[in-house]
């Protein structure tokens, strides 16, 4: 017999959420969603959650199992049992709960809409559809598989502390249009996406890749948008300056110049930003942690420079 420890919430009855345990024999081959359905149909009809296709296509049944976002219909229940034969089920994170496992997706959709998730062109529509070659489509194929389940948004480490971050789903959707050969607003898009809350606020934690049930894998899509932003010359922000300073340092010495990167990331004329570096700089200096002032190159740095040259960097 397995225990399903479900986080319940119904503000009309009780203001605070609480956990309720349900005992259920897991039928062979049952998914988490099958079990949740069974609980609703046989043990407590008030249990509330979203579901629809049961085939990992619609993206409705995202919820947390044992602390991590999953599609309930995509996960075998037995694989989630802990050593006490228990599965802890909670609503998705980074969104406000409405009732039980249902959360308010409005901020999620607001952010998706903010990246203008539609084709923008200058020409009037052709008589037939706007076509792409298979190679052109390949560049946006992964992003286009996103089913907007919200799993990545739920477990994003940045969103836990900053709700202004656009988040992985919206940024992956942005790549879908930044990389679209038919779209004619690339520069405008990457300029907007380089603002605070955009691509450069991604912390590389990889949670979105881990929670994504499809090949969309937002972190990799965000990196693709970063590359386009750099290529398009959108450099007037700390993220782009950081990347360019990093590359410059590896190019010249084969390794990172930790003394230069913070200064160059802030920008030489960003007085406020540079002032912010003073406390950490002083602390490091007092503890003799400041990286060597004379920055030494790796051995055979000539070969590294040759590789940069060969790749046109």
């Amino acid at each position, binding site marked *: 017999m397995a225990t399903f420890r479900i986080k319940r919430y119904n503000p009309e009855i009780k203001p605070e959420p609480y956990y309720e345990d349900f005992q259920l024999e897991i039928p062979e081959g049952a998914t988490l969603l099958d079990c949740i359905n069974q609980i609703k149909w046989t043990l407590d009809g008030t249990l509330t959650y979203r579901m629809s296709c049961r085939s990992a296509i619609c993206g409705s049944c995202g919820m947390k199992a044992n*602390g991590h976002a999953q599609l309930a219909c995509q996960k075998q229940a037995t694989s989630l049992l802990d050593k006490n034969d228990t599965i802890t089920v909670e609503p998705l994170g980074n969104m406000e709960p409405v009732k039980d496992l249902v959360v308010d997706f409005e901020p999620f959709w607001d952010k998706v809409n903010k990246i203008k998730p539609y084709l923008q062109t200058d020409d009037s529509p052709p008589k037939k559809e706007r076509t792409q070659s298979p190679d052109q489509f390949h560049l946006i194929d992964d992003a286009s598989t996103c089913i907007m389940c919200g799993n990545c948004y739920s477990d994003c480490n940045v969103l836990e502390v900053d709700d202004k971050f656009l988040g992985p789903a919206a940024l992956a959707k942005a790549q879908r249009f930044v990389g679209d050969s038919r779209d004619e607003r690339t520069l405008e898009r990457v300029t907007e996406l380089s603002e605070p809350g955009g691509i450069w606020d991604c912390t590389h934690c990889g949670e979105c890749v881990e929670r994504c049930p499809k090949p969309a894998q937002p972190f990799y899509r965000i990196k693709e948008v970063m590359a386009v932003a750099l290529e398009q010359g959108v450099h007037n922000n700390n993220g782009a300056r950081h990347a360019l300073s990093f590359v410059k*340092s590896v190019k010249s010495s084969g390794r990172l110049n930790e003394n230069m990167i913070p200064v160059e990331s802030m920008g030489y004329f960003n007085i406020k930003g540079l002032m912010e570096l003073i406390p950490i700089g002083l602390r490091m200096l007092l503890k003799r942690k400041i990286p060597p002032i004379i920055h030494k190159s790796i051995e055979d740095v000539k070969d590294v420079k040759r590789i940069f040259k060969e790749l046109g960097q």
Partner: protein
Amino acid sequence: MKFALFTGCVSQGATRELMVSTKKAAEGLGIDFVEMKSAACCGAGVVGEKSSILADTLNARSFAIAEKQGLDLVTICSTCQGVLKKTECNLKSDPEYKKKINHILSEGGHQYDGTSRIKHFANILATDEGMTRLKERIKRPLTGLKVAAFYGCYVLRPSGLSDFDNPDNPTGLEDIFEVLGATPVYYPSRTKCCGFPIVMMNKTASLEMAGNALVDAIESGADCVVTGCPLCHLNLDSYQPEIDKLMQKKYSIPILHLPQLVALALGYSPKELDMDKHIVSTLNIKRKLHPVG
């Protein structure tokens, strides 16, 4: 045990105590590390933001250097580990891409075949041989020391590239702590991000991420946090005074590098491991250490 040591940049710069303690831990364990002095920076995922083929070529060059020595490559940084594993995955999954990169490498006299394995220091300790060596050579069990692991994202995610058994709920570091005689502290934030990659872009969010992890570790009863990533160390240790202000909490918890903890158990003194060079005082750890037996 002999490995090519991929030092990474930060162990040569802002966290030189990591390099010092890695050498001591290796000496104590009888591990022969051959420093890869001509290996370039892994790119930390940032070079890849400019050009992914550039990052992969530089990393393939590092693999080729280890291969030439006939050695597996060991990292002492979670970020280096994750970035190198991603390059390895890119090269192994696309023969044409590998061919193209080898063509670029050939002029420099390098050739990548894929024969060297890429392992984080924690993962070589977590093998049967590593654990046996540890058990045999411990001179000062860390009894009574409550240690909270902070893994660093890149050794866990994506899980397909991770060497840890269950990246969502890993026990690799905690298993090492137990062998060292310490008491592992399990807390929810141990697999989260420290926030360092965005400290230049969104400092408040970055420090809040680090702060939440520190509060979690402290409230779970830890005496110290131990990490296998020098970048996590920078955010958790060097920025701790600022985190303190941001979180409006008066706390202090020392952050150790994994090789420092290992070397303490092997009998090295805190001074030999440059533990006095941390921003946050490590005095509470020194007080809890038993004499070397």
